[in-house]
């Protein structure tokens, strides 16, 4: 009993200690810089790693915010350049030399001048430490030199217009700091010296860190936010809780029924905008281990029938809560790149991308697919059965629900298919190794549609990466994709991209379903200037991998003009 008495006494102390803590918190000095609270990724505890080349524990505020890119290309506006550390670029006539002109007067955050020597040093460092070369740029680069302090000339091994986008975004680090580092691969760069707007780390704990204004920032006139605050958030549920309480300013997450869960908590200030992003599609394995399935997948009419059985509108509304954008392009182009559309290809093959259950059944029937063995499902014309699972990564609920609707659509036209949800690691492994029949998959985005198609269907990636599991090898397609990057003439590029789309539309090697939304939610309570549907300046998300977030940061300012 004495034990319980003591416990009661302890419990009585609780409100007292709670009170003490509150009082102590309020007594902290009120030094009030305008602070933007951001959640750019989930973490179970921050690691003080500002090394911009580390792919595992790097803080997602190192690139763009601490280390500024040379040029930012605006994906939402056809790749229009915004010049940052560089003021211009120039291709030589043979397209093998790319010259960047660097901006004058740019300083590192410790006051030292930023020059072309830093760029050369950075690339030379990649040569010595391959682990830092995260774009494997030396596979395409022959040499880099700096004829003077504000000019850098890159010499390419072969013509590739895309190299411009790559070279413009690789973070450049300071020669006078990194030349003294013994092992830059494991260097965590705890106090970054950068060219970006936010380089000073004011506070750092596992649960929260604050990154503040660069005292020598070259574009300080455009920067109206003083500090960025990054609370540690572990999963979607915690993110939703913090967002509902109005604690976050800028983040991106999938929120089921967002009007009710997020906006309703503060209808005036809680906003969101989901512009179209990368394509999500169903992949066929042209080299499926099962001969019956393989024969079916290699038949273009079977693939077209699969495409016509997809009720994309229902998939988007039910599985995606209406957030994604339907992709009914025969070539799978996607709304993000609508300016590049090949109208001819869409006219000829567009009907195969629209929901038409009866048309699908008819197409299967007239191609010879019928129920030979009497099990209620169609088989190959030669009698081999068609039976498989479609893979979706476990835990990615919107994709899993999408796959279930896909299966319903396929069962309705007589195809014997079920859902299988392996762990994401296993799903990725099976796609790479070709140990699957059908799967749901997502594609990359880039400044132009080339990146998505190239990483998806060029033979050099085929069977080696998760985004190229189809194993559809078409030399004409390879040639058209290569021709696109062999020139910087917009008309020639347009012709190549038209050809790419025509080949894909005619062959339907995959079944695009929708464009994944770009997750972007914001809070107008403390800051204004946000990008949204009425102000679509650039891609608005705060994720690492979207350089445009720097432009977004510079567009923001405090609501009350200060503090």
């Amino acid at each position, binding site marked *: 009993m004495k034990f319980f008495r003591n416990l009661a006494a302890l419990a009585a102390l609780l409100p007292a*200690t709670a009170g003490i803590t509150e009082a102590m918190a309020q007594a902290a000095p009120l030094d009030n810089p305008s602070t933007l609270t951001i959640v750019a990724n989930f973490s179970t505890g921050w690691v003080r790693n500002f090394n911009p080349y580390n792919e595992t524990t790097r803080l997602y505020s190192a690139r763009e915010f601490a280390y500024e890119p040379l040029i930012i290309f605006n994906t939402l506006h056809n790749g229009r350049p915004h010049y940052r550390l560089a003021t211009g670029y120039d291709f030589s006539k043979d397209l093998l030399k790319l010259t960047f002109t660097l901006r004058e007067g740019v300083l590192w955050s410790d006051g030292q001048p930023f020059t072309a020597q830093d760029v050369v040093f950075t690339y030379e460092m990649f040569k010595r430490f391959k682990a830092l070369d995260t774009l494997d740029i030396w596979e395409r680069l022959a040499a880099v030199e700096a004829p003077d302090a504000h000019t850098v000339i890159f010499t390419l091994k072969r013509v590739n217009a895309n190299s411009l986008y790559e070279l413009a975004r690789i973070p450049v680090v300071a020669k006078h700091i990194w030349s003294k580092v013994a092992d830059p691969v494991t260097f965590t760069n705890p106090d970054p010296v950068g060219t970006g707007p936010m380089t000073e780390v004011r506070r750092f704990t*596992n649960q929260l860190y604050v990154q503040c204004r660069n005292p020598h920032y070259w574009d300080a006139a455009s920067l109206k936010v003083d500090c960025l605050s990054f609370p540690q958030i572990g999963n979607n549920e915690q993110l939703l809780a913090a967002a509902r309480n109005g604690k976050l300013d800028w983040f991106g997450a999938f929120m089921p029924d967002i009007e009710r869960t997020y906006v309703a908590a503060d209808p005036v200030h809680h906003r969101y905008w989901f512009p179209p992003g*990368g394509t999500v599609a169903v992949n066929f394995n042209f080299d499926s281990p099962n001969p019956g399935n393989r024969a079916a997948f290699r038949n273009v009419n079977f693939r077209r029938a699969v495409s016509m059985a997809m009720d994309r509108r229902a998939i988007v509304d039910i599985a995606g809560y209406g957030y994604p954008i339907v992709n009914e392009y025969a070539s799978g182009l996607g709304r993000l790149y609508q300016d590049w559309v090949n109208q001819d290809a869409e006219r000829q093959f567009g009907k195969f991308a629209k929901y038409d259950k009866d048309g699908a059944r008819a197409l299967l029937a007239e191609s010879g697919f019928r129920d030979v063995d009497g099990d209620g499902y169609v088989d190959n014309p030669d009698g081999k059965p068609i039976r498989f699972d479609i893979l979706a990564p476990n835990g990615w609920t919107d994709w899993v629900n999408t796959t279930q609707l896909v299966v319903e659509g396929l069962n309705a036209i007589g195809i014997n298919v079920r859902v299988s949800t392996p762990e994401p*690691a296993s799903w990725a492994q099976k796609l790479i190794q070709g140990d699957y029949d059908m799967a749901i998959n997502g594609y990359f985005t880039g400044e132009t549609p080339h990146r998505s198609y190239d990483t998806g269907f060029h033979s050099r990636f085929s069977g080696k990466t998760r985004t190229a599991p189809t194993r559809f090898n078409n030399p004409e397609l390879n040639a058209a994709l290569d021709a696109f990057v062999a020139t910087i003439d917009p008309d020639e590029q347009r012709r190549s991209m038209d050809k790419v789309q025509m080949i894909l539309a005619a062959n339907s090697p995959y079944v695009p379903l929708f464009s994944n939304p770009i997750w972007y939610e914001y809070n107008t309570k403390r800051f204004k200037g946000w990008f949204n549907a009425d102000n679509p300046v650039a891609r608005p998300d705060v994720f690492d991998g979207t350089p445009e977030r720097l432009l977004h940061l510079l567009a923001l300012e405090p609501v009350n003009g200060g503090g």
Partner: protein
Amino acid sequence: MAFLLRRVGFYVAAFIVAATFNFLIPRLMPGNPVDIMFAQAGGTLPPEALAALKETFGFIDQPWPAQFVAYLKSVFTWDLGLSVKFHPLTVNEVLLRALPWTLMLVLTSSLIAFAIGSLAGILAAWRRGGRFDSIGAPIALMMQAMPPLVTSLLALFLFAIYWPVFPTGYAYDPEIDPGFTLEFFCSIFKHAFLPIVTMALAQVGGYLITMRNSMINLLGEDYIVLGTAKGLSDRRLRMAYAARNALLPTVTSFAMTLGASFGGALVTEVVFNYPGLGYTLFQGITARDYPLIQGQLLIMTLAMLTANFIADVLYVALDPRLRKG
């Protein structure tokens, strides 16, 4: 003595077997760390990064025998290598970030559950059939059956969201800087309250029932009857004779809990956003971070075997019958 030596021999053998399994099983899972990094990164990690990543993580690509030798060495040098998922942190650093919090949570909640459960079990057995026993024992069983996830979520919802008495997450208030200040310790206490209480609640039922059952078995023994006949007080009989003997099974289960503490408490950590080893191991497994998985499993094995060994030693101290041989 011979008894203890036999036990030590058994534990060494158990350790060797466990260590070998800890090495093999993670590597038998399909998938490898680099491919998984691409799968989980979605659109941010371009396929060109493959070369750079293979270069960074070359240390896990060596043939298994070489890795096994390095692993065995690490048992003695305590250098568990570089983590893959948390590169460039070493496995030691990753585990140390979470270890103090996990130990605090698990040890405190286990001690509280053990103390309360055992005392209540003694009371329930002594007044067998009485009011406390008829109500307490079924309630304990019900709490034991309730999944810890349900208890945690209920506690979070009721006491942190609906009535915001306690914070919803974190180990301490993010606004406070860690240091030896009263403010910091108060914050830790406040943030640890709900996790500790929910974890204690999940275990208390087990201790209560175990203690009650072993006490009830003993209450019919001759020496208890003799003690009552000789006029010993209720309390002395209950504590010094019956409870002391009934304690033995509970001690074993308590030792096992302590040993398992290095595995963390995954549910509590996820619900309360608390740093801990459970979630670290979970992340290591999904990322196929072999050095982290085998390092953590090694520590868990050692902890479990040590705890069992201590339980054996305690048994010898508590139970004179074992001292004879």
